[in-house]
């Protein structure tokens, strides 16, 4: 029944009211002439409403004359009438068609690449390799053979154990599993010494292979040999056994940094005046919507971006970018001596900490302060560390 109703809607029909004395005769003639009628309802005596197809309605005039009935249209329903209403509005129809077309075209591109599952491989590296294989924002998705791309990705990046590329809507989802690389073998046949990487005081020496040249408490400078790879053989001073030295040499090292802090500092402060710019980003081009002049001398700028997407997976190449400008003024602020010391020590410590290599244990930081006649405070921070200073150096020529 629903399908029939839908079919009638597509074909179009009219609801008419028929008035007259011989309504039964009217119906009978209609059926005899193969005109389909439905939903015939009596409206008191001598009047009825009924539904009739457009073609049937065109054949109604002689029947109405024959039976002395008057026919009037109450309502027109169905798609043909809707279409005829929009026939004159060509631009509207063109716009609707264009919209559907554009939506189709825009959704046949890839607009974002989502990479999940990588821990040690950088996302940027994967993105670059994917782009080389044709998977990047702006590429036509029908041209991408995901199996082929996955295969070449496996070849391109060694650390990959498994990769899957699926295209969902306008998003390319890349899932990755990383491989655990086998540990590097120690090349025992390659003779080497162990030398100091930097200056320090030796704390402990543990030799697994080789001949120790230093002992705990010795001060070493950068480049000094710590463990020799050539072991003298007792009794035969001329010949030496050449080995690949393996040892862990821990030493105390120091990292220094200083920082000067003025007790009078200028600080930025927001005045409360602000301005907002909204612009639309199309592909990579930015279009300003309501350009206003910024009348602030000094200001902070905060930018927020909102990407337009349909249902999460369908990311469109549009974004709304809002720029907020906050007017700022400079306020002179005086610090107390303690505050200045604290600030100087903190910044110096942070700077020194950047120099400390990974794997070094921080033993203790030492801070010294100096004041000059202008009221400026200088902090010297020394961080004492315990770290592995041994580094392999090949024994050349042998």
């Amino acid at each position, binding site marked *: 029944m629903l399908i029939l109703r839908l079919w009638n809607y597509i074909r179009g029909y009219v609801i008419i009211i028929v008035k007259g004395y011989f309504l039964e005769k009217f119906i009978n003639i209609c059926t005899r002439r193969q005109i389909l*009628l439905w*939903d015939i309802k009596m409206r008191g005596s001598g009047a009825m409403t*009924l539904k009739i197809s457009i073609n049937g309605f065109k054949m109604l005039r002689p029947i109405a004359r024959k039976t002395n009935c008057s026919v009037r249209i109450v309502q027109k329903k169905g798609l043909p009438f809707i279409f005829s209403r929009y026939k004159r509005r060509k631009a509207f129809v063109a716009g609707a068609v264009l919209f559907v077309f554009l939506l189709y075209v825009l959704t046949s591109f890839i607009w974002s690449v989502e990479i999940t599952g990588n821990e040690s491989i950088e996302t940027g590296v994967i993105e670059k390799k994917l782009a080389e294989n044709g998977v990047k924002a702006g590429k036509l998705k029908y041209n991408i053979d995901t199996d082929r791309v996955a295969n070449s990705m496996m070849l391109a990046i060694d650390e990959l154990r498994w990769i899957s590329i699926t295209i969902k809507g306008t998003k390319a989802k890349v899932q990755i599993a990383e491989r655990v690389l086998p540990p590097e073998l120690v090349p025992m046949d390659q003779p080497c010494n162990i030398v100091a990487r930097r200056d320090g005081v030796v704390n402990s020496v543990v030799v697994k292979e080789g001949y120790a040249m230093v002992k705990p408490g010795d001060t070493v400078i950068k480049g000094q040999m710590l463990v020799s790879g050539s072991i003298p053989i007792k009794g035969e001073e001329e010949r030496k056994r050449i080995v690949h030295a393996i040892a862990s040499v821990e030493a105390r090292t120091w990292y220094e940094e200083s920082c000067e802090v003025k007790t009078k500092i200028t600080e930025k402060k927001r005045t409360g005046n602000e301005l907002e710019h909204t612009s639309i980003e199309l592909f990579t081009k930015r279009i300003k919507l309501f350009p206003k002049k910024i009348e602030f001398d000094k200001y902070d700028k905060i930018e927020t971006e909102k990407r337009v997407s349909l249902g999460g997976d369908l990311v469109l190449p549009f974004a709304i970018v809002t720029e907020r400008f906050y007017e700022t003024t400079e306020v002179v602020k005086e610090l107390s001596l303690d505050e200045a010391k604290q600030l100087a020590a903190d910044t110096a410590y942070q700077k020194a900490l950047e120099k400390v290599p990974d794997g070094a244990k921080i033993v203790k930081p030492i801070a010294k302060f100096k004041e000059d006649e202008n009221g400026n405070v200088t902090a010297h921070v020394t961080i004492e560390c315990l770290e592995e200073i041994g580094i392999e150096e090949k024994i050349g020529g042998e």
Partner: protein
Amino acid sequence: MGRKKQRKSKKEKKEVNLKEKITEVLELPKEIVLNVPKLTIMGNRDIIIENYKGIVEYEESRVRINTAIGIIKITGSKLTIREITSEDIMVIGDIIALEFLR
């Protein structure tokens, strides 16, 4: 005259009987071969009459339909003709009675 008519009707009756028998033996659809209406009634809501001849009367409380076996009278309330073609008619509404008039 009277006699003749009687005879004729007897002959017709025989023919009908023969037709009926043939259709029964061959399992042909009766409503087409015998030209009798086929009524389908669903509860007291809707009634479909196939192989009818025409509408005699149509009102909200009464519909009379002409068929080969006579007039079928449907009485009830809020009767509407849901669909009508040259072969079948579907009447819906609260049906109270269904009568066969000769």
